[in-house]
């Protein structure tokens, strides 16, 4: 089923929408959330994501359902991650990404801006990067893909991916500093 057909089911409040989402994206969402959390928490987040989507569509009408669900799921995972981390559970790829970004621009230095406002800057920043570096950064920081998997995807040496990421994070910090967001 096409995305727009599934979205139409949502709009008609037809519960088959959730089933179709599970069929189309279930495996992907499960794998994505397990980059953040252990299997138990990951499964719960995926279920919550379906529920959130049910409550948000309508009025939302996403063009890309996969990205839409991924976004919801990511935010849910972040919330759950806080709890898991406090309890020292897990040890997933997302934690490493968190640490990497925190090293580049810690929360304490980003006091003047909310995460939502920061998103707009991040979007603009990613567009300033060369295409490949931008995609690598997205795959790491949004999708929390491991360096090894990114390297395989782009047929690069993992060290080269690390260097690209390091450079992009440095540039991001400079960009935020230039925009007056980073103290």
């Amino acid at each position, binding site marked *: 089923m096409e995305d727009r057909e599934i979205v139409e089911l949502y709009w008609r409040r037809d519960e088959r929408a959730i089933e179709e989402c599970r069929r189309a994206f279930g495996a992907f969402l499960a794998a994505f959330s397990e980059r953040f959390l252990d299997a138990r928490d990951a499964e719960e987040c995926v279920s919550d994501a379906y529920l959130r989507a049910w409550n948000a569509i309508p009025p939302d009408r996403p063009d890309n359902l996969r990205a839409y669900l991924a976004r919801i799921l990511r935010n849910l995972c972040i919330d759950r991650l806080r709890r898991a981390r406090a309890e020292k559970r897990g040890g997933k790829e*997302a934690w490493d990404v*968190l640490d990497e970004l*925190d090293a580049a621009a810690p929360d304490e230095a980003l006091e003047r801006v909310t995460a939502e406002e920061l*998103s707009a800057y991040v979007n603009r920043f990613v567009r300033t990067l060369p295409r490949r570096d931008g995609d690598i950064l997205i795959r790491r920081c949004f999708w929390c893909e491991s360096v090894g998997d990114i390297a395989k995807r782009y047929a690069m*040496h993992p*060290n080269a991916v*690390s260097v690209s990421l390091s450079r992009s994070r440095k540039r991001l910090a400079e960009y935020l500093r230039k925009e007056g967001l980073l103290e």
Partner: protein
Amino acid sequence: MNTKLFEAFSGLDTELLERAERPAVRKKRAWLGLAAAAACVALAVALALPRMARDGELRLEGPSVFEPSPGMEDPGIGEKPGSHENPGDVQVPQPQPEGPQEPEGPGADTPMEYPTTPPELLYNEMDTAEAAPPAWLKDVTGRTSMSAWQLELVWSADCPTAFLEEGDGERFYYGNSVSGAAEYFSDGALYRLVLTFREEGNPVPVTVTVSPADGPLFTGCLPIEDGEADLAGFMGVVACRYDYGERILLAAETVIGEARYRFTAETPPEGEEEARQAVYDAVTRFQFNIFYKLCPRLDTFVMGDPMSGEPLVGPTIRTLLSLRLTGGAETAEYAVNRDGRVFLFRGQEYVEERLLSHEAQMELRGLVEDLDAESASNACGHEVSELTLTLYDPWNRETGVVSGCLEDCEVLEKVVEILTREGVLDA
């Protein structure tokens, strides 16, 4: 737990997420990014192809380098270019445009002809002076075959090192990440890009010809308005855009030494914008890669694997060796490249870069290249302070692993001694 920046990535535009999802590389053809970056076409053809630039017009005349000579065989490996009029048979899949098919794409039977109408020069006027290769570039040869390509550059020690200061100071990283730069568009459309480079401050029209042995050159387009800034320094870029209504052709050429590099790009109008970004990456990488290669610290550099015909990693700076030290839960890896740069990684995190002295580079290179890796494997099984030395061939493939404790392995001991003396490892 600090999550603000991490959370901010949740707000990435769908368009960017979709972009990052697109298959960027077909591993089988990953080398094409490098073929696009630097494959040498037959030199004789390159020299035989006159180029005129008058009053803002760029007109390319002469036989197309994509036109195979009658009865031309695969030139094979080891044959010097110039023994053929044209490079190896270049089978380029043809796009299926709906409108008039002009200009024709290259193929075994279809010669590619350059357009005869004056192009629209988007920026930079072509200098009419004859191209003169840099004095420090001593020799460039190239070979192509049906399944691979090869480029060999030799340069003298008086290569201006100022080139290494171009860009944002991170030039080296681009060289490292050039592998896998090829990108295809899923509709199968063919794009060819030809670029003309000009040395900044000293107009030397150079021609870049890229001709992979098979398959399309590479896809994408140069964002003309930005290209010059990024390709300034050693090479400038003049891109010509031919608008034929149904098709857009971008054309330019570059010569390095006696090697002529040509890219051509042809696209339906709706594909132009997308194509620009992709080729911009490829071209930028090519430029960094090429001028980075022209470094006096490097040896003669051979790209490609003509013997096996396997897809090539490409002309990145080759890793000489990597040294992994594990002590308890900590792992530090030092990747020593053939130009003497050493990268330190802790886990998967890149930490810093150092540069070895020329003497240390020569010592390490001699040590590693003399080592018979197959017979040198020596695992002592110790868990603490275990050293693993991985050796690489010029195509960045692992050729051997030596592991063990310092006391067990003379080679390891020597490598550590050199790196310690250079301040890379703590004494």
